[in-house]
């Protein structure tokens, strides 16, 4: 009966008798009960730990001394970043955000006075506006009942709401200024001439889209400023020739306040809830999507048409009408 008891509580099947072939290695005699068996195992593990761990720890420390060689790092960054020409080129070409750039550019195109950076600044402001705009969208309802109060709420109660709204507004104004300065610069450097004519036109469309974005956003706070600005603007729409009910030949073509182009813009014959909702959708969804598509084309064409146009070597009037080969001989 005592033996039976021992058997039940035994560790790894030890029957309580000495068995030379089984049990823990080493010179620990097979214990008479389970507890001693566990003790032996634990001791064994501790020994193994103390023997192997120092080497493992040392190996681990060695492997993180240079983080750029870890698997995590190399899985994210697929090439080295030390300063060789190859890595500098790869840094641009293998990066999804940067690969619009070429690997190298004209040494003088980096200088600020030539490009003024306005195209890039416009794009950066677009990103700032998208970011602040999305954040604003969390608090804004495009309905007549709520719009004005939401903007007041943003200004007074939402943490950092005031800065958010201000930044959205000022970035919008700055973007209009930047896009006009960009157009001015491109004109003054003649960077719309062959082969960049199409891209200039894409740019003009982007200018119009920027102004429309600004205009549709102006109405959204639903205050006196926005309301009357849109009233003036859409009242001009009713004067469209042929399509407006107060434009030349409009009434003759059956235009009334309830079916002309102004009605289409406002979703009604007055600037009211429908106009607000339409402005919201144009401003937040439709025009940004359209503008993004045109931006993609615009940036793509910059590369395809030969990159930043200059500064190009000056051409003399005497070389103007000669075939292009004449230029290369002149020290280009």
């Amino acid at each position, binding site marked *: 009966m005592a033996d039976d008891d021992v058997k039940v509580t035994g560790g790894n099947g030890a029957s309580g008798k000495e068995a030379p072939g089984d049990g823990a290695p080493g010179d620990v005699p097979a214990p008479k009960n389970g507890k001693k068996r566990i003790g032996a195992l634990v001791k064994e593990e501790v020994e193994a730990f103390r023997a192997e761990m120092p080497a493992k720890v040392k190996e681990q420390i060695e492997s993180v001394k240079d983080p750029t060689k870890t698997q995590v790092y190399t899985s994210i960054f697929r090439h080295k970043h030390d300063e060789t020409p190859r890595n500098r080129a790869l840094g641009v070409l293998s990066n999804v955000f940067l690969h619009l750039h070429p690997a190298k550019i004209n040494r003088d195109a980096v200088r600020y*006075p030539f490009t003024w950076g306005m195209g890039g600044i416009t794009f950066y402001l677009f990103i700032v506006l998208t970011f602040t705009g999305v954040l604003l969208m969390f608090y804004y309802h495009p309905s007549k009942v709520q719009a004005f109060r939401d903007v007041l709420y943003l200004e007074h109660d939402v943490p950092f709401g005031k800065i958010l709204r201000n930044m959205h507004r*000022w970035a919008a104004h700055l973007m*209009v200024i930047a896009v006009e300065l960009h157009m001015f610069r491109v004109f003054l450097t003649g960077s719309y*001439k062959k082969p960049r004519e199409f891209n200039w036109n894409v740019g003009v469309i982007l200018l119009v889209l920027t102004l429309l974005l600004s205009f549709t956003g102006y109405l959204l706070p*639903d205050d006196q400023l926005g*309301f009357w600005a849109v009233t003036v603007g859409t009242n001009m729409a009713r004067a469209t020739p042929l399509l407006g009910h107060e434009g030349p030949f409009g009434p003759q073509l059956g235009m009334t306040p309830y079916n002309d182009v102004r009605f289409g813009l406002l979703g009604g014959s007055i600037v009211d809830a429908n106009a607000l909702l339409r402005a919201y959708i144009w401003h937040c969804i439709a025009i940004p999507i359209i503008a993004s598509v045109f931006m993609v084309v615009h940036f793509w064409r910059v590369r395809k048409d030969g990159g930043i146009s200059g*500064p190009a070597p000056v051409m003399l009037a005497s070389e103007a009408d000669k075939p292009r080969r004449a230029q290369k001989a002149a020290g280009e």
Partner: protein
Amino acid sequence: MNWHQLWTIATTPDNIPITALLPLVLFYLWLAFRQAKGNDELIAQLEADPALAKTHHRKTWPFRPGWQKEVHVWPFLLRMEFLAAIIVTAILMVWSITMNAPMEEPANPNLTMNPAKAPWYFLGLQEMLVYFDPWIAGVVMPTLIIIGLMVIPYIDTNPLGGGYYTVKQRKFSIATFCFGFLVLWVSMIIIGTFIRGPGWQWFWPGQTWDHNRLIYEVNRDLPDLFGITSNLGKGIFGAIVVLGYFAVAGFIMTALFRRKMPKDWSRMSLIQYQLMMFLMLTMMALPLKMLLRLTLNIKYVWITPWFNI
């Protein structure tokens, strides 16, 4: 001289962009013309010395044989872009913290603001409403502006000046664009912001905006000046004036163009020239009509039952 009012207008948060636009435009104009002057001097030097023209690298910036013609985008361009992003962000942050976006009372269709001004970038068009009917000022003119901008690369046949600043080699195109952009667009924005007050009346800077001021302007139409009273007469007269303007001014312009710019004349095809001339004449018609209105109080030139110009 109401300095307080001038200061208030200039520093109203929504007018800050225009107050900033003026020095910005002037600065960049200066920056462009400085480089253009450098290039023009180089061009003069190279034209005087053909031997130098063959070997010079043709830029105002230094270059020696053996130097790299191109530099790596990473890091050189990217650090400029990064710096630009930081500076723009800093400007935006300071601006957003110090200036509050405007917020008037809730929209009230029964209460018109006086003056009810469009956003600043459309003030130029709103100013045009003084001189033209809405269908011209609001639809036709903006459309022509956009079409005109789009057509520029296709009517500019001057092969010089592609990729570098120059004034000497592109006098005509630069003068035309600067007239349209600076004189017409930008200065109209400035007029709309600082000069137009209640009732869209003209107030010189410093003149207090008086909501009760009434200036009786007796406008007359051009046919009235000539004593034409019948509607048919007015219609025919107006047509003669408008089409005659295009014909006569077009003739003068062509004569001048042919004589002063013979190379461009020979380079341009018929359609290029006609497009350019039409757009140029239409653009010039704006200040011309403004002048007629401001000096002679003439409102309409062409009156028909369907439209007035």
